[in-house]
């Protein structure tokens, strides 16, 4: 097999830095200092959650299948920072980060990964099926592309109920080749629904690179959106601000009743498809090149440069994240298993 090293962008946060000439991060984004710091804190929390989930899985304390998100945190956080608590998201099999970014409680997420009765789904969903309706999280999804129909439906509901809510539909590069994407993109376009189709291209499937599986025209990823006459934005998925600005364009368009937008983010999965992936299909040096773009420390440095935080603050928040996740693990492990006699409960509502 030919293994191509995917060269990362030359500089971390290059697009954001270019935009910052003559302005500040607060001005550029319109976000308050607290919200900007919150981006760092949430990314750090997600990283810790994923590191712990992977470790617990390897230790046999989580069973089943766990797909982790290290490296992609800028996408989940950048996108959800454009949303209100009432807005909707749909997620994927690699969905822990999306739900945590949208505000789900890490304790109940961890409990769900461990199949405990205190988990979001009472242990019935597991890693690939976390939902929190109280925060507009319409569920992660075990089917590639499975959230796309749901996303268009919640967008229709917002439209008919005139409640102003927007739906962000997260999906991976793999879903670009699922039939449902074609159907719902077309439907959302003709109905001008308030949704953002957010593609996370992390370059790899389960056994190889996306290029072997994806036919693209001269306009690349954007060409897929252009086929439906939909506007498309392409973002550096290692740059939380670039993702935020790109998704915000789509969210604003949706709120203004101008229909759906595609946002393509290019990001990198530091680890394998799932915990335990031997990664035989990827050059071993490649992740090291991409780790230089790690969205968390690079954004931290930018916050320091901008005078919004000190290096001590960053260290404190990293520490805080590990304390919170350690607490989540304790909560999950001390939570009861579901009782056997609840197996048949709740098939129908």
């Amino acid at each position, binding site marked *: 097999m030919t293994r191509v090293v995917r060269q990362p962008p030359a500089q971390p946060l290059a697009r954001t830095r270019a935009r910052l000439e003559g302005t500040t991060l607060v001005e550029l984004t319109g976000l308050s200092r607290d919200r900007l710091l919150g981006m760092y804190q949430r990314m750090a929390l997600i990283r810790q959650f994923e590191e712990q989930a992977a470790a617990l899985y390897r230790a046999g304390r989580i069973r089943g299948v766990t797909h982790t998100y290290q490296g992609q945190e800028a996408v989940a956080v950048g996108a959800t920072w454009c949303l209100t608590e009432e807005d909707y998201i749909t997620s994927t099999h690699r969905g822990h980060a999306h739900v945590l970014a949208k505000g789900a409680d890490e304790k109940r997420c961890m409990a769900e990964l461990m199949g405990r009765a205190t988990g979001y789904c009472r242990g019935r*969903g597991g890693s690939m099926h976390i939902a929190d309706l109280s925060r507009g999280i319409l*569920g992660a999804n075990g089917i590639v592309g499975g959230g796309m129909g*749901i996303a268009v439906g919640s967008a229709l509901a917002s439209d008919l109920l005139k409640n102003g809510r927007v*739906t962000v539909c997260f999906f991976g590069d793999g879903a670009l080749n699922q039939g449902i994407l074609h159907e719902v993109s*077309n439907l959302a376009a003709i109905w001008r629904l308030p949704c953002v189709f957010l593609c996370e291209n992390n370059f790899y499937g389960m056994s190889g690179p996306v290029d072997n599986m994806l036919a693209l025209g001269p306009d690349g990823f954007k060409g897929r959106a252009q086929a439906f006459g939909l506007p498309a934005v392409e973002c550096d998925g290692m740059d939380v601000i670039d993702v935020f600005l790109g998704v915000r364009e789509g969210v604003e368009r949706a709120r203004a009743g101008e229909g759906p937008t595609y946002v393509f983010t290019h990001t990198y999965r530091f680890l394998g498809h799932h915990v335990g992936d031997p990664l035989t299909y990827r050059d071993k040096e490649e992740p090291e090149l991409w780790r230089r773009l790690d969205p968390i420390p690079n954004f931290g440095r930018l916050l320091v440069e901008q005078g919004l935080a000190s290096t001590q603050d960053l260290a404190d928040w990293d520490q805080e994240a590990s304390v919170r996740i350690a607490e989540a693990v304790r909560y999950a492990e001390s939570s009861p298993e579901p009782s056997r006699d609840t197996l048949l409960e*709740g*098939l*129908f509502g």
Partner: protein
Amino acid sequence: MRTLSYMQAIAEALILEMRRDPHIYIAGEDVGKFGGAFGVTGPVFKEFGPTRVLDTPISETAIIGHAVGAAAAGLRPVVEILFMDFLPIATDELCNQAAKIHYMFGGQVSCPLVVRTAIGAGMGAAAHHSQSLEAWVCHIPGLKTVAPATPADAKGLLISAIRDDNPVVFLEHKMLYATKGEVPEGDYTIPLGKAEIKQEGKDVTLICYSAMVRQCLAAGALLEKDGIGAEVLDLRTLVPLDKEAILSSVAKTGRAVIVHEACRTGGFGGEIAAVIAEEGFATLKAPVKRVCGPDTPVPFSPVLEAEFIVSAPKIAEAAKSLL
């Protein structure tokens, strides 16, 4: 009581429910101004227009897929899949998403969704427009399946289906659309999961649903000439299944003939037979019989199609073989 066609009864149910609850909307192919391929939604569109009766592209996956999200976000979609043969296109959305989200998300989400779809052979529409695939749907936990045989049942069951907080697949037999019957006015519901004895009899129970109810009633008339009393039990709902009605009728007659238009192998009749074997075996005076469609696609030729469809004489013959 006034008389309505099966199709008019369905339209009346839709209209009454849409007047009652603004969260209900209809979506499907050609359901709007055109009025639906069979004409069912025409009167509904006339009253509610394009904001509540939404024409979709030919995209079955998107029709059911979007409806799951709309239901989760507070609407009550009633979507139409023109022919049940097209339902497999949306299998993921129906079986993996709609059916599972309530249980899989620990009860956080409900999915009040009705999928109306036309089943059955008889109009020369051949292999891709004639199937009865109810057994597939019944196999998926989390879906309810309804198959009315009369206009009154169609109205009462559809209203219940729309009010149910779960995904319901509502099977309309296309050869029944023009059939007429008395239909109660106004708010009329029939609970899901309640079978009805359409004709009483003491010698043999003919267990059926949808268009086969008419065939069983005709078979009952044939059997009566021979002095055999056939009880025609219309299941009306397959999931939830009215086991009690099946078992008590079989306990009374001691004989059961299960009739469906769908193909035999893996058909829902096998499930009914299993229920009788497991829970009513001691009451049987003869083996359980199935009269079903053959294990073939539905052929186009009128001669072959007529041969495919279970007929009253075949049912009567099967019943007689048990006596």
